[in-house]
């Protein structure tokens, strides 16, 4: 039987819904999480789960850095091994222009206390021996050794299981159909399995957040964009870092078990819910991997899949309150909703629990789209 009331109803059991359920139940809130499929069924279960603190906007850099501080102790805190590992992110610098931007980014990142530096082509080969700086067209890179990776399934399940221990309820295969609003206040959530009375609804529905927001009469500017990824057969462990390039859009790293996992964007990708993996992605990714690390040309691709980015006009998430009392946004994460989820969840839990927030989040509210848009430049995939 489904419970028919809660302090907070979270729509979506991706990493953000699961982490928020944990933070809220830790504060004694009575929480229900709904998902029309299951835990990590959306972008969370399809993502690269890279964790990067090297951002060009201070908002993203601080969110990511604070999240890494939480990730570092999260397996302990949740009593669940989330597979967190810090092998660093190596970001290619291709020319003088890149170098200028890199210097600016590194300066800002250092100002918030991040351990990050600019390295030359020789050092690229020291950190990831299979890389070929000429093929990469790289004159150097930035490197942050505390960036890393966690297992997205384990992190989501770890948060969910800990939340359940604290009293949160997860109802899977339960789809939200309507959100009832009266006098500008949230009243209840209607699902295909019944209605739940609540004063607070969190929209953590990933690439479907726009539709969920509409149910309460709120317009979001978010758009779904298909992203593809692949994984190769396992090979001997060679490197720990994630390699990325903003110019080529490529990212790849070696997993715990030895596989190479990565992706590259499609120049002709249109917005919309396209699920089919494409052969052109495979061709482009194989070509670029061969340029970056020629030894990989001979290894086998095992699997290829797709997922969606939930993209906002400025590539920053939409967090916090709306004009409807009790309707909270937690979406628009583009390609980095996994890495900032621990801090996002903590901040939203503080907001919902009327605590003082560790960081201000007004700049990330839906209201920002009324004014000028500053775009995050450091995006890949």
């Amino acid at each position, binding site marked *: 039987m489904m419970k028919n009331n809660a302090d907070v109803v979270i729509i979506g059991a991706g990493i953000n819904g699961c982490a928020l359920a944990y933070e809220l139940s830790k504060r004694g809130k009575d929480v229900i999480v709904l998902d029309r499929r299951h*835990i990590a069924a959306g972008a969370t279960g399809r993502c690269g789960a890279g964790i990067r603190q090297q951002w060009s906007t201070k908002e993203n850099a601080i969110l990511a850095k604070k999240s890494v501080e939480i990730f570092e102790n999260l397996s302990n805190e949740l009593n669940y091994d989330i597979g967190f590992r810090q092998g660093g992110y190596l970001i290619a610098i291709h020319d003088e222009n890149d170098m200028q931007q890199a210097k600016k980014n590194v300066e800002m990142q250092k100002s918030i206390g991040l351990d990050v530096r600019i390295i030359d082509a020789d050092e690229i080969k020291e950190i990831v021996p299979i890389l070929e700086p000429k093929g990469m067209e790289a004159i150097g890179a930035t490197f942050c050794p505390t960036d890393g990776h966690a297992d997205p399934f384990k992190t989501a399940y770890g948060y969910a299981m800990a939340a359940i221990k604290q009293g949160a309820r997860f109802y899977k295969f339960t789809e939200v159909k309507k959100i009832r609003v009266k006098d500008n206040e949230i009243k209840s959530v209607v699902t295909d399995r019944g209605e739940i009375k609540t004063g607070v609804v969190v929209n953590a529905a990933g690439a479907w957040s726009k539709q969920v927001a509409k149910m309460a009469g709120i317009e979001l500017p978010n758009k779904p964009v298909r992203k593809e990824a692949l994984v190769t*057969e396992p090979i001997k462990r060679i490197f720990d870092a994630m390699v990325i390039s903003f110019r080529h859009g490529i990212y790849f790293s070696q997993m715990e078990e030895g596989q190479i996992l990565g992706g590259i964007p499609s120049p002709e990708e249109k917005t919309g819910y396209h699920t089919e993996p494409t052969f052109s992605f495979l*061709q482009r990714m194989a*070509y670029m991997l061969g340029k970056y690390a020629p030894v990989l040309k001979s290894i086998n691709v095992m*699997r290829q899949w797709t997922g969606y980015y939930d993209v906002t006009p400025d590539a920053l998430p939409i967090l916090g309150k709306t004009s409807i009392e009790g309707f909270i946004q937690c979406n628009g994460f583009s390609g980095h909703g996994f890495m900032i989820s621990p801090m996002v969840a903590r901040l939203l839990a503080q907001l919902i629990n009327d605590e003082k927030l560790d960081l201000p989040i007004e700049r990330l509210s839906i209201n920002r789209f009324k004014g000028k848009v500053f775009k995050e430049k450091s995006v890949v995939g």
Partner: protein
Amino acid sequence: MKIVCRCEDITEEDIINTIRKYNVQTLVELKQLLRLGMGPCQGRTCLPIAARILAKETGKSVEEIMAPMARPPVIPTPLWLVSEDDEK
């Protein structure tokens, strides 16, 4: 102890325990939780067996359980073979 997935070394007992602990309803969840079917054979042998175990545990039909598997099976293929031309 019966091994179901040879590639990833997963037993029937692992599968049943996981189904019960997480109230698993679909094969996708089992794949996520256990890395079942992620080995070199890509689940050709283990997924059908796991589907039968899951059907028995949940009382669903094997068809229902297999349904949400959208990912197309890819035959292991060397990267050089699918790479774009070098000319461009």
